């Protein structure tokens, strides 16, 4: 067989590369900032395995994507050699504490994470003692930023999301009674349930039944049978996606057709994937929409999907936003842990896939919640 000439191979290679160059993302020009040439490591603590891995894997994937984007120039750290060092906390409190010890002593400029609010309560105080700034990306329970003067979060807290969710749904659905089902052994779901209770009471809604469950439960038939008997106008879910999808599906099995709503924990495409048509119509108060038209969001979603074969969820988006925030701080010349806390305090605005974000005096993120409704295969804005 005749071997192809070298120029023919070169031409074939060029032809193959041209379409990739046309359709691929064009790297942004990397600027030379005050930290150019410096090596900056940021420690990331995420539950890549264990019970919270469903959230932590998305977070790890987002940081790995950010590392790729730093190399390709899509994420600009001003010429600094910035990298995100992701370590698995394995959904284990003691592992979280170990990793906080590690990142507060290994020269990391900043710590991002951990995945869960309960873990933040264990780990953040270690960073506070070591005067290392922490930015939570999915810690939404009350009181997290109060753990220390350099504890921030880019995740909208339930206290920020739930009031808007209650106000909007009440205006549209005009309900008078509600039942609440929430997880009482998880900082996020407990906070969610408590805040929904308070906000519903403020809105003049009568709570006709309150049921609790434990994270990891799979059978909600007994609680839902009781809720059904109480005939509420709306059912509130203080739950994470894994439990929420089963509650929604089992409610449909029991013939419950009542409106349902929840907070950040329900902002996952897994809900529809699991519960199918039963999930359509469920309202979700959240911090991010996959369809949000903020700068770079569509590109982030596209690249994430291309790299991992799945869509990013809110946990992935918030992690990527923290990576964008970190890159901006480094680009502005903040390369050490001593500089990071002050830089976060002085931050005016950062452009992220969550939209433009800043921090309020209590170090909570300032951003607008989005009220979404589950539709076939995804989410739409709730009107």
């Amino acid at each position, binding site marked *: 067989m005749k071997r192809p000439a070298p120029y023919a191979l070169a031409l074939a290679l060029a032809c193959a590369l041209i379409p990739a160059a046309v359709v691929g993302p064009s790297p942004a020009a990397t600027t030379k900032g005050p930290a150019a040439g410096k090596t900056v490591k940021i420690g990331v603590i995420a539950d*890549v*395995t*264990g*019970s919270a*891995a*469903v959230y*932590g*894997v998305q977070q790890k994937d987002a940081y790995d994507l950010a590392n790729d984007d730093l190399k390709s120039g899509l994420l600009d750290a001003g010429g600094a050699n910035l990298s995100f060092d992701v370590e698995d906390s394995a959904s284990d409190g003691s592992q979280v504490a170990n990793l906080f010890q590690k990142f507060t002593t290994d020269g990391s400029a900043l710590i991002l994470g951990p995945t869960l609010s309960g873990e933040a309560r264990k780990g953040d105080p270690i960073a506070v003692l070591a005067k290392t700034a922490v930015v939570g990306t999915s810690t939404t329970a009350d009181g997290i930023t109060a753990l220390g003067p350099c504890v921030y979060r880019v995740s909208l807290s339930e206290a920020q999301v739930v009031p808007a969710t209650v106000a909007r749904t009440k205006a549209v659905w005009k309900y008078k009674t509600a039942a609440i089902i929430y997880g*009482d052994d998880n900082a996020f779901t407990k906070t969610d349930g408590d805040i929904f209770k308070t906000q519903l009471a403020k809105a003049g809604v009568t709570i006709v039944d309150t*049921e*609790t*469950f*434990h994270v*990891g*439960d*799979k*059978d909600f*038939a*007994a*609680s839902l*049978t*009781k809720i*059904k*008997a109480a005939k509420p106008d709306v059912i509130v879910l203080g739950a994470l996606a*894994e439990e929420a999808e*089963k509650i929604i*599906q089992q409610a449909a*099995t*029991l*013939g419950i057709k009542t409106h349902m709503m929840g907070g950040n924990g329900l902002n996952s495409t*897994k809900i529809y*994937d*699991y519960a*199918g048509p039963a999930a359509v119509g469920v309202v979700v108060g959240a911090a991010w929409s996959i369809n949000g038209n903020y700068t770079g969001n569509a590109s982030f979603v596209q690249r994430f999907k291309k790299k991992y074969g799945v869509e990013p969820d809110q946990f992935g988006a918030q992690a990527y936003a923290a990576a964008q925030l970190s890159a901006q701080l480094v680009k502005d010349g903040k390369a050490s842990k001593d500089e990071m806390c002050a830089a976060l305090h002085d931050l005016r605005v950062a452009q992220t896939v969550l939209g433009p974000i800043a921090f309020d005096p209590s170090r909570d993120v300032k951003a607008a919640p989005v009220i979404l409704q589950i539709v076939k295969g995804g989410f739409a804005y709730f009107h």
Partner: protein
Amino acid sequence: MVAQQLVNGLFLGAVYALFAIGYTLVFGVLDILNLAHAAIFMLAAFATWSLIGAGVPLALAAPIAIGGAGLLGIVLDRIAFAPLRRRGAPNLIPLISSIGMAIIFGAIARGIYGPDERQFTLGFLQAPPLHAGPLTFTIVQLVILANAIVFMLGLAWVMRSTALGRAIRAVAEDRIAAALLGIDLERTIAATFFIASALGGLAGILTALQYNSVQVDMGAQIELKGLAVIVLGGMGSITGAVIGGFVIGMVETLAVVFGLSEWRDAISYGVMFLILILRPTGLFGKRTLRTA
């Protein structure tokens, strides 16, 4: 509402009972807790999910996975228990060894399937619920209950009316005496592990189908419930495991009925403690004589 709740408790209890039988069988024969039982429960569910994904119908995938779970039980015994048994290790050692195997099985499953929940794409899981008067239930729940009853009755028949059952009971009663009577100890123990693990696998498959959810951590909760069930029913008693399973399922459901959902697990264990105070060997446990 109460009738529906009793049905809810019945379905819940059926799976608890099926899972706990495996625990109690091994305990009855070897006087040890096999804490890798929940990992086999999980692996059988994943095996079924994989086979269905490869185009194998459920009616074939489930028996293959159940058989695989049984064989894995034998492998487990050969690796984690038999060497220790030969060396006369105290009972705590095989317990730790089984925990180690559970961790290894979990790590393998996590490496293959990742942490995400997997779902079946079976049409009958999406079938509309059935109604009988005030009661609502699904076809899957009926399949689960029917399977649980058939397999529990089947096991009762094996234990009572077959040579294998008699051998298992003899070994459970007195291992040395059974050996002197010519019973092959190792084969009987292997058969016990096969049956126990196959039933654990069946429970895993049924649980996965009921909630349409397969996950690496799916055995974590039922593992503790299974322990409560066998303690309540009497360690080593198959009847006790069955009754205990239904008691725990009903107690959990009734705790919710009485507005105590946040105390559900505490109440289940509270009932267990109460029964143990009244009957320290559990509902169907045998009294043991302490010798000097």
